[in-house]
């Protein structure tokens, strides 16, 4: 059966997700992996990096469109969305910051899904606080020598190409490291709380010798920008995926409330249940609008997208965690049962509050907005 999508609009991706993701997601969650057969489906559907330009095999999809794709995938399975997120981060870094040679070497394979990317920042002792990373890249014979251990690497167990952030003098720079490079060791991590099928791993780099072409982006003061930019895009994808989780919780809860009766009355008529559903309806729309604003600003190249993305991720991820809790509550014991999609949403939603900048970091950072001119206004209002 062919799964090539005629277009990458929301409705085509929605149908793809309903046909190929929703029925399988709980099985993948229990297995702790996404099967190769489905990875091939994603490839055939052109979903790995559709924002890349057509010249390298992408679809030239804009960022608003990409957000819609990641929302729909996230509605079906946060683990699959996580794989797309990290692949997106690596592909975008090469596209935005790479040299001509790096673009030629990697983008066609990344666009086609022949090479799967993973993003390596977190370490045993450093997560959202990137300043604490201890992996080092030292100049060596015209190239680099990379040493350190990265942990909680999404798709680390499967990916072919790692975008590794390492301390390089006083700054943090990005390096492209093929999985096959001598000195790269991958150790899968099983049984995580959520996004259990996202094939996490610890990836160790033991004096990995890299050529001069491994460094991505500028060196010096601007090198941290690569990390900021990549995290911004990851945050955007997680925000969109979180909207998908809220939508999935809403769909499941409304469907269940409509058919289940309590004391002779349908659940859907109980005021306390209606209150929960009303909040889901409201928050899913609000979160989606915040994501769309961030995406529109990205498409316009407007620097206000960075703060808009922080806000979207903070709102959408906390809404996902809140409503997934309520969705389990509405489903009762069924929501706690083995193989329950609602239980999976609950576990996955918790992860959304931690990855790509924890809620605590979001709450510290978004406050900067309060001290800016015209705070609280959208960029359009300011003109």
């Amino acid at each position, binding site marked *: 059966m062919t799964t090539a999508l005629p277009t990458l609009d929301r409705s085509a991706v929605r149908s793809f997700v309903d046909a190929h993701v929703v029925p399988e997601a709980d099985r993948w969650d229990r297995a702790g992996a996404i099967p190769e057969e489905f990875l091939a489906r994603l490839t055939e559907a052109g979903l790995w990096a559709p924002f890349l330009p057509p010249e390298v095999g992408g679809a030239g999809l804009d960022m608003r469109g990409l957000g819609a794709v990641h929302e729909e995938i996230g509605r079906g399975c946060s683990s699959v969305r996580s794989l797309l997120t990290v692949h997106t981060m690596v592909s975008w870094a090469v596209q935005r*910051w790479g*040299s001509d040679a790096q673009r030629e070497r990697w983008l066609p394979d990344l666009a086609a899904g022949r090479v799967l990317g993973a993003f390596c920042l977190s370490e045993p002792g450093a997560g959202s606080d990137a300043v604490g990373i201890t992996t080092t890249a030292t100049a060596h014979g015209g190239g680099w020598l990379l040493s350190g251990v990265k942990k909680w690497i999404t798709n680390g167990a499967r990916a072919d190409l790692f975008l590794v952030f390492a301390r390089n003098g006083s700054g943090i720079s990005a390096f492209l490291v093929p999985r096959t490079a001598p000195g790269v060791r991958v150790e899968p991590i099983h049984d995580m709380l959520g996004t259990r099928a996202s094939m996490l791993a610890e990836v160790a780099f033991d004096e990995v010798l890299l050529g001069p072409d491994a460094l991505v*982006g*500028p060196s*010096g*003061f*601007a090198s*941290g*920008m690569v*990390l*900021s*930019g990549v995290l*911004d895009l990851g945050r955007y994808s997680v925000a969109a995926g979180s909207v998908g989780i809220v939508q999935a919780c809403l769909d499941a809860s409304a469907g269940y409330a409509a058919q289940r009766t309590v004391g002779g009355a349908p659940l859907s008529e109980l005021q306390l249940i209606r209150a929960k559903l009303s909040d889901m309806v409201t928050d899913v729309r609000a979160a989606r609008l915040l994501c769309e604003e961030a995406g529109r600003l990205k498409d*316009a*190249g*407007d*620097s206000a*997208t*960075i703060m808009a993305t922080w806000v979207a991720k903070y709102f959408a991820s906390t809404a996902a965690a809140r409503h997934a809790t309520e969705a389990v509550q509405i489903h009762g014991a069924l929501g706690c049962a083995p193989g329950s999609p609602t239980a999976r949403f609950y576990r996955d939603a918790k992860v959304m509050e931690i990855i790509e900048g924890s809620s605590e970091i979001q709450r510290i*950072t978004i406050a900067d907005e309060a*001290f*800016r*001119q*015209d705070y609280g206004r959208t960029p359009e209002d300011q003109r």
Partner: protein
Amino acid sequence: MANTHAQTIRAFIVGRHPQAELTDDQDIFSLGFINSLFAMELVMFIEKEFGVSLPNDELRIDNFRTVSSMAELVERRLAGAVSA
């Protein structure tokens, strides 16, 4: 032209730091304004506002040290775009 560019750039920075006073020749790094997020916002702002692209080799600290040096960078990129 560079004067107008400088005004526009200064307005952007001061909008992010309304309490600060900033001259065109003050080192914004020594004032503690720059972190990697703000650096990225600044680069995005310059690229969009002036319709220029800033390749990796232009992303040097000296090009971003002062409002004046950023205005000169913009001038140089605009001139390069015309002659290219």
